[in-house]
């Protein structure tokens, strides 16, 4: 799961359907969906957002949403 990832770790998204509809749509707009390879770039303190990278594109999203994304480590 994404919640346990540390900075620099990579994974492939296997299930994104638990995330809210709007967030899912935005991530899809940015090309991040099931099958995308993502890498955690940084994690903000105090439960703040995370920054992930996919295909050279950096995206910031909230930790609680990131935790709902199921990711398989590679």
């Amino acid at each position, binding site marked *: 799961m994404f919640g346990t990832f540390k900075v620099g770790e990579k994974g492939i998204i296997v299930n994104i359907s638990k995330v809210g509809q709007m*967030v899912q749509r935005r991530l899809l*707009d940015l*090309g991040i969906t099931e099958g995308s390879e993502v890498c955690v770039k940084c994690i903000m303190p105090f439960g703040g*957002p995370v920054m992930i990278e996919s295909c*050279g*594109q*950096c995206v*910031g*999203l909230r930790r609680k949403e990131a935790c709902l994304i199921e990711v398989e480590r590679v």
Partner: protein
Amino acid sequence: MEIALIGNPNTGKTSLFNNLTGSYEYVGNWSGVTVEKKVGVFKNNKGRLIDLPGVYSLNPLSKDEGVVTSFFLKEPVDRLLNILDASQLERNLHLTLQLLEYEKPALIGLNMVDVATKRGIQIDTEKLSQILGVPVVPVVARSGKGCDRLIEVISTSSNHSKVKRHVYYGNAVEDAINKIGIELIGKTDHSPRWLAIQLFEGNDYVKSYLSDLVEAHKLETLITQLESVVINEYNNVKSLANYIYVKRKEVIEKILKASVQKMKTSEPLSEKIDAIVTNRYLGMPIFLLCMYLMFMLTFDWLGTPLSDVLDGLLTGPVTIGFESILNAINASDFIHALIIEGLIAGVGGVLVFVPQIFILFFFISLLEDSGYMARVALVMDRIMESVGLNGKAFIPMMIGFGCNVPGIMAARTIETPRERLMTILLTPLMSCSARLPVYALFVGAFFVGHKALVVLSLYVLGIVVALILAKIFTKTLLKSETSLFVIELPPYRLPQVQSLWRSTWDKGKGFVRKAGTFIFAGSVFIWLLSYAGPNGLKVDMDDSFLAMIGNLFAPLLEPIGFGTWQAAASLITGFLAKEAIISTMNIIYFVPENASLQGLLSDYFTPLAAYSFMVFILLYIPCLATAATIYKETGSRKWTAFSILYALFIAYILCLVIYQGGKLFGLV
């Protein structure tokens, strides 16, 4: 010929627009700089170019994206100029395929090829053009390279669209498209195929457009049937929209395979910078340090010395020059007083602060151009979330430091209506550049040792009050709905001197222009009010009309430390424009030669009252232009009135606490 410029956010559409039309519109390095459509004329007069907000898809989520969809549905357009970010071709092509389905002649400008090359991405433009069936022109939007070629192709390429179907959506969907096509025969100028596919994707704008033409229940049943067929037929598909996405993606993968080569490269510099500025622990301190440096430069190190030089020039040679001209032409006392005591004092008093304002605007432009803006939103999100907003709301607020009007406009990129409204209501609390002259004047008079720090405290106070109010609004007026925070973090770019200067100048010239028009006229008016009284002209200022008006409100201001008619009168003019406060003060406290307004102020204010006055100016009311923008953006008189009233209330309460509290602690 109407040509629409369209593409993903932050792909350089507005940069290209400026280059192709020779105009100057607002550009920056984050998603959502352009929030409304802008129209310009091509340099060669061959047509009009329409700049649209960036979108990922024609199916909108936020208000600025809705602008694009309504444009496509309602306005005439002859050609489409689609800008692609070469480094993010895959996701850019999703939009391109939708645009091609719109079946208007299209042209592709391939931007950021340099960024792509650095990432090891090689694109065969010939091949891409061949597959898509439209011309593809590589451009560098920031420098204007390739623009000539683009104009040439736009003006010469044939008007006939070669309709080429790129995506075959499978039998079921294609049948449904045809059914809708039959329903629409003779009813619309748009491509029925495009309308149908957008409808299937869940585009609400297209749905409401179609429900005017076709009975709504027919569409509904068609969609439900189709969705169940598709879901039954394919295992991995969850919805109709998802199915369409997958079909497009398959086509895009084929296109990319044929036209793009990828090589391995090292970690880009951008990510190395990010490792520091968005670092867990350093992110926030770095942001605060940047702000601190900005204020030191604006108020201490650079801005104030420059302002002093300008002030010396205006009160010295310029005034003397005007005096001698007026004497030479034997001007009447009235004209003499009007020009020296009214105009030079009023307009000059505002112009003196041009250096400080330009320095501030320079830093805001630097922030926008470099790509740091989106990072600030990321760093601030945790705090914003705790008060019921999201990090994106911080961008309008930062822009509000320059001027509240574009700040409020920038709130359009916020997806949820509740957060957007809240951002609109709170942005006026951000200390805009027009308020800056008041601070500069007062800190110069009362807080010489700590200029930058005192001003910084006011900016921070504005933010803190906004955050506290956000929390209160979330708990009371605007109860929570789901919040959304997904932000694209663009790669850093080294800001170019030319574009930095242009965007600084573009923001700053508004200030200068306002001084020459609004403040000019206002100064004449204020001076007349101070020159005339019930007993005729040339009265003692304390007996003037201005004093009478000011005296009406002065008693109300007594408890917060500045119960003089002068303060009251300048606050009233401050509603028109915040700079007017300064010009009014310059006229009211007209300073005889060899003295300064700063010295004179200490007869009327104590340092504590001065701080209370600055806090009041910071919060008390959005200016006229801001109030008008709030009305335009919310479309509600109620919220506009609310934004004015709550500000007055908060300002008064806070100043009361500061002044009376300060007195209790023995401050004066």
